[in-house]
């Protein structure tokens, strides 16, 4: 399978759905990726089982404040130069590139990096959605060391990291991103094919394209879209897909605490009669409660879309009066192990509730 320039609109749309309210605006990364694919041709998408055990794979993506890149634009070659800087640092060539976060703009950066070099991109990622911190990604949970890692900034400044654990690494790259104007590109969590295979959420790049196509072809009222969405998720690593709620946003209050957009949204039925749905937000939509009862929690996916068109709505853009539908999607099985839940269960986000899989709610 290949990713072509004409697949990118679907890929972005699918990736924004999987971003569960976070992940940033992919408009500029999409422009860049499209330029790269038009210049260098399509990129091969490699199934993780076809990856040789000894292949050297590195994950590449953007880290920082997406708001800043509205002003300080990335460059077309940032991703490829990050890769070169990484190769210089470790003294060897990589065999394939992988995404660390399929949700939002970071679905496109690995493809951009791979295009100029004729490298394949591994079909899959380290989150299967968007999550706010590096230690929540599957590579970290599986015990992959974040370094050797490099960060590349707007001016070509390169910083290298030798850090044993991802939590420390996360702290360092955040600080560096601020010092570098708000946004950096990183090459990190290098793995062999054998290490990556059990650590990856497989198939998510190809799936995003498929999901984006379903959303585009079935564009319309969210409840009428449900059968098509159920179909596409059933045939994937996610499985369950439910329509949790249709209604209007009757309240939304968030504020920035420690760099995160934290707060709550309340939805009420169109008819004004019936139970309200509340959603806790920390950049992403994390916990949904219907009349106080939990109906979906992180790491399962909670997605808010425009009721009339099914277009996903970013948490920053959610506001009073919007008519919306809420979908819940089961997370990939990887996140449901005890070890993974230590990093991504509601308690990891400060919610004093246990994780109950969507199918059991």
């Amino acid at each position, binding site marked *: 399978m290949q990713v072509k320039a004409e697949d990118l609109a679907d890929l972005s749309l699918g990736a924004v759905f999987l971003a569960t309210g976070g992940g940033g605006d992919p408009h500029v990364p999409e422009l860049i990726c499209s330029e790269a694919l038009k210049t260098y041709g399509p990129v091969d998408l490699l199934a993780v089982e076809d990856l040789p055990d000894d292949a050297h794979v590195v994950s590449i993506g953007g880290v920082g404040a997406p708001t800043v890149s509205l*002003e*300080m634009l990335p*460059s077309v070659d940032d991703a490829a130069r990050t890769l070169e800087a990484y190769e210089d640092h470790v003294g060897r060539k990589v065999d394939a590139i992988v995404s660390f976060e399929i949700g939002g703009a970071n679905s496109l950066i690995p493809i951009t990096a791979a295009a100029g070099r004729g490298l394949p991109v591994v079909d899959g990622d380290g989150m299967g959605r968007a999550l706010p911190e590096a230690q929540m990604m599957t590579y970290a949970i599986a015990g992959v060391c974040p370094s050797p890692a490099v960060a590349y900034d707007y001016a070509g400044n390169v910083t290298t990291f030798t850090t044993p654990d991802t939590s420390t690494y996360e702290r360092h790259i955040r600080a560096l991103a*601020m010092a570098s*104007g*708000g946004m950096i590109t990183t090459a990190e969590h290098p793995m062999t094919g054998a290490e990556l295979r059990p650590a990856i959420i497989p198939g998510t790049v190809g799936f995003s394209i498929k999901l984006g196509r379903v959303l585009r072809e079935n564009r319309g009222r969210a409840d009428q879209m449900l059968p098509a969405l159920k179909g596409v998720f059933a045939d994937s690593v996610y499985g369950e897909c439910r329509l949790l709620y249709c209604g209007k946003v009757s309240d939304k209050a968030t504020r*920035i605490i420690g*760099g995160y957009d934290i707060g709550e949204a309340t939805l009420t039925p169109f008819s004004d009669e019936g139970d309200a749905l509340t959603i806790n937000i920390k950049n992403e939509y994390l916990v949904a409660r219907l009349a106080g009862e939990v109906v979906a929690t992180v790491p399962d996916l909670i997605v808010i879309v425009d009721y009339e068109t099914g277009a996903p709505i970013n948490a920053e853009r959610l506001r009073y*009066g919007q008519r919306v539908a809420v979908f819940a999607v089961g997370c990939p099985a990887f996140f449901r192990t005890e070890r993974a839940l230590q990093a991504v269960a509601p308690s990891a986000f400060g919610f004093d509730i246990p994780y109950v899989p969507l199918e059991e709610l």
Partner: protein
Amino acid sequence: MRIGIDVGGTHTDAVLLDGSDIVASTKALTSADVLTGITNALDTVMADADVPQAQVEAVMIGTTQFTNAVVERRELSKVAAIRVGLPSGEGLPPMVDWPDDIADALGRTSYMVKGGSLYDGWPLAELDEDQIDAAIADIADKGIENVAISAVFSPMNAAPERMVAEKVLAAIPGARITCSHSMGRLGIMERENAALLNASLLTFADRVVDAFLEAIRARGFTCPMYVSQNDGTLMNVDFVREYPALTFSSGPTNSLRGACKLTGLNDAIVVDIGGTTSDIGVLEGGFPRESNVVIEVGGVRTNFRMPDIMAVGLGGGSIVAPDGESIGPRSVGHRLVTEGMVFGGDTLTSTDLIVAAGHADIGDKSCVANLDPAVVAAGNQTIHRMLDGAIDMMKPNADPVPVILVGGGAVLVSGNLKAASKLHRPENAGVANAIGAAIAQIGGEAERLLSYSQLPRDAAIQKVTNEAIERAVQAGADAGTIRVADIEETAIPYMDEGNTRVRVKVIGDIAALATKEGN
């Protein structure tokens, strides 16, 4: 006294105001040359009012001509773009995501040079004067005289844009320049697009302004003339020659401002019902609530300050489904007077429904006497349901809010709207736009990304306020009357706490009139 003129696509309206009182008003068709329509409107209000011309202190004009020029790709000059920002954004040149036809109309000439700054003011790269000089020499060679200049984070540090502008002027005498920091907000591509569109309109702006002036001078007026901006304030003649793009969307804004004046309500929802759509906007503190999303003008993404308007496909000419359960978005538009049933036609429109229900007396009601009462009742419910739903989406919160109905289709609303605490139907609602233009003051706006940990909040807001005041004075405001209209603070995700986007808007009286009234 003031005269307000609104030049729309279909109608040219004018009002003569004495303080708050409407002395005379007129609604006439817009002429193909625009100017005849304006002079006719002037003549009508002056004849009706019978006051000496010397009593008219100012003429305010709202016009859609510049929006139409962009949408229709005409009257646009070739523009060269210079962006200061490399190494960031390499490979993403100006106009990269524009539709081909408008990029062609502007000529696709762009240059990217090193420089600009980070969010905290740290230099992004050292300016390379040779690179800039080479770009300017190339522009001169090509004979391009309109130039748009942008720089990364220029709303926070305008020095690089100003420096390049000076160099352009030195090399190309008579060059017409738009700097992106003077067009607005953070988001370089959208701000640069705004500057490019503005630069492409500068030559046309001179012609339009000269023609307006000629028209009012030819009628013997010696008073100053002002043009409406999209935020509900005015620009003097010199300012509009520099910033014609700031007129985009001034029509809906004037309608909202006019509704505010007519009812005295500063916080309300305004529903302007026309022939094809109902345009719903929100008055907050007497001014339109602004849209926060990227707005496309003629297919180009911009971040102009624009009123947040929701258009619903429901107007006087909207076509009704046979069962009355759905209405629009298709409309017979201005053919209502021939195709609507009350006018002897055979298309069931929303106007026919309200006549059949006995809520209005339009056309010949015997033509709708045989309509099924169930369909009439269902249709009238549909009208209210559609407006209710749309108003509810525009409300800032769940509290009930007064609703002001304006526009020729306001008769469609016969019952109560659930979303409204009270319904207002002001007299003279038909010329709300012209009233909005006539009553406007002069405004200024500034925006910066600041760190409250480096500059305390009060000092930070004062700094941005001072910049906004400077802009307002430049646009013709009386410094002594300027007050702060709005302060917006937005924290930035994934940044250190205290990093805040601060936007301040100020408003003041017209300096030329204040002096006169002071005497």
